[in-house]
């Protein structure tokens, strides 16, 4: 790869379509994922995330559209794609009857690393994924977190350039989830491209350079996590008052605000920057109303997600 001009995108797709029977799962998906970046495909259950992964990893064929992974067509050059990718699916893809070490050596053999190198690679990954103590136990006896680590270790045996992680932290406890995030960040540092699917917004926010929101078989929004957050309203200042009289007076000052008579709060929508905040406080002072507490709410991907998917649900 020494003399190749600008690196081609790691993953490129246009107009991917797929139906299972009468059920349309993907209705024209376009993707453009630069090499060395982390891309998160975000969506609720049943949005078609796994189907996208299965098409890009050559497990199933799309009904229409084209896709290239690592420069090769996923249908016509499946073996070249397979040689370039590593996949950790939603279902544990370890051989439960084999030990952790045997699983890794099996992968090494299938990558034809040779006996000595294969064993060295297996031991290196066992150490890196904190599995040395369990290396001799059948994988079926592993905990969920250990299985996931072994699974990812197996994916890495052949040093793939493009890694697919289909819901890598679903079903993990918070500690294992954080450990998995760190592992993924470490991987990114080695220059690989990562295609991640998740239903956790926080996960996409923390890991991804770019996020696409998939719903009903279409990409309904795409951008950096910040771009997406900016694209929807959701920021507000929450004011709390001592009594109904103060709340009533304040509500009169902010016509667009949502008032909650039981909690004695007023939700003032808008920007949460310093200037905007000062404006809110000045208005309160001007009206002679005292608030007992104040909190800020910055829009998260959650707001993006709910805003986007609720418009669809309303249709």
């Amino acid at each position, binding site marked *: 790869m020494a003399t190749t001009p600008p690196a081609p995108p790691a993953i490129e797709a246009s107009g991917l379509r797929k139906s*299972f029977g009468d059920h349309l799962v993907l209705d024209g998906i376009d993707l453009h994922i630069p090499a060395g970046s982390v891309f998160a495909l975000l969506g609720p259950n*049943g949005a078609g995330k*796994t*189907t996208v992964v299965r098409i890009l*990893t*050559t*497990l*199933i*064929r799309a009904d229409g559209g084209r896709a290239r992974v690592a420069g090769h067509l996923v249908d016509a050059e499946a*073996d*070249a794609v*397979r*040689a370039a*990718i590593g*996949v950790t*699916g939603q*279902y*544990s*893809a*370890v*051989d*439960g*009857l*084999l030990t952790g070490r*045997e699983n890794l050596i*099996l*992968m090494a*053999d*299938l*990558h*034809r690393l040779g006996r000595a190198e294969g064993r060295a690679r297996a031991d290196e990954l066992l150490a890196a994924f904190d599995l040395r103590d369990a290396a001799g136990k*059948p994988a079926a006896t592993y905990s969920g977190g250990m299985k996931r680590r072994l699974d990812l270790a*197996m994916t890495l045996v*052949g040093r793939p350039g493009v890694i697919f992680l289909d819901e890598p932290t679903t079903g993990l406890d918070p500690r294992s989830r954080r450990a998995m995030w760190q592992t993924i960040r470490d991987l990114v540092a080695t220059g690989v491209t990562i295609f991640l699917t998740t239903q956790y917004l926080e996960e996409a926010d923390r890991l991804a350079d770019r996020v696409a929101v998939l719903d009903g078989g279409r990409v309904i929004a795409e951008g950096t996590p910040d771009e997406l957050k900016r694209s929807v309203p959701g920021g507000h200042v929450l004011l709390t008052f001592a009594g109904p009289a103060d709340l009533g007076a304040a509500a009169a000052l902010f016509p667009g605000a949502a008032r909650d008579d039981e909690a004695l709060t007023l939700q003032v929508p808008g920007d949460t920057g310093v200037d905007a905040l000062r404006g809110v406080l000045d208005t309160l002072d001007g009206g002679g109303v005292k608030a007992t507490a104040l909190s800020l709410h910055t829009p998260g991907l959650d707001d993006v997600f709910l805003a986007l998917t609720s418009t669809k649900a309303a249709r």
Partner: protein
Amino acid sequence: MSTTHALADSATMLRRNLRHARRYPAMTISVIFGPVLMLLLFFGVFGNTLGAGISAGTGFKGDYIDYLTPGIVLMAVTSGCMVVSVAVAVDMTEGVIARFRTMAVFRTAVLNGHVAGGVLQTAASTALVLAIAVALGFRSHDATLLDWLGAIGLLLFLIVALSWLACGLGLWSKGPESASNTPLIVQFLPFLGSAVVPPEQMPASIRWFAEYQPFTPIIETLRGLLLGTPVGNDAWTSLAWCAGLTALGYLWSRRLFARDPKHAS
């Protein structure tokens, strides 16, 4: 993908398979148990009656165990091969199969591994059943070395054929449970052939079936080779059946495996 890759990947999968079998030998042991129990039942319990009936009806000279052993050996083969069916069906529910499909691995290597592993195990269990028959009194009085080699060759060919057929059944089945039921038909067939008693003494309709089903010529060829009696056209019929079943089982398995994998969503 080159032939060396195909061989290397199949060998890797065979190692995986033998490791499974060694770690969980329950299946292998039950496979040997079945035919041995049949042998004890037919020889030890029904032997006198069946033997007397066969010599009276067909003029078969010799001990009943000499008549029975080729049939029992065939049962050892069928029950051994059918383990492949269950093993394949169980394996297809494992996530690791999906992983293999996303790797640049020779496509049918995982099936080749199952079949090769099944062939080795069934050959071993069949040899053991034959050894037990010899210990119980089976003697091949007139068989030459060439006859024995022919018998071994035919058995191996049959094991390969039935293992591929079982592989197809395992892929075709809805899951491990049905994979263990469907092959019962195959295992039952030798009884409706000449395994235990000659078809000449069966009711007319069953006799017609018994004479044309694949196992009868195979048992007859095996009996001829092991006892050193003439084999005739049965040998060619047997080879044709084995070749046909191998081709059918292999192509069917390959086709089923190429379908979109399970866990579709």
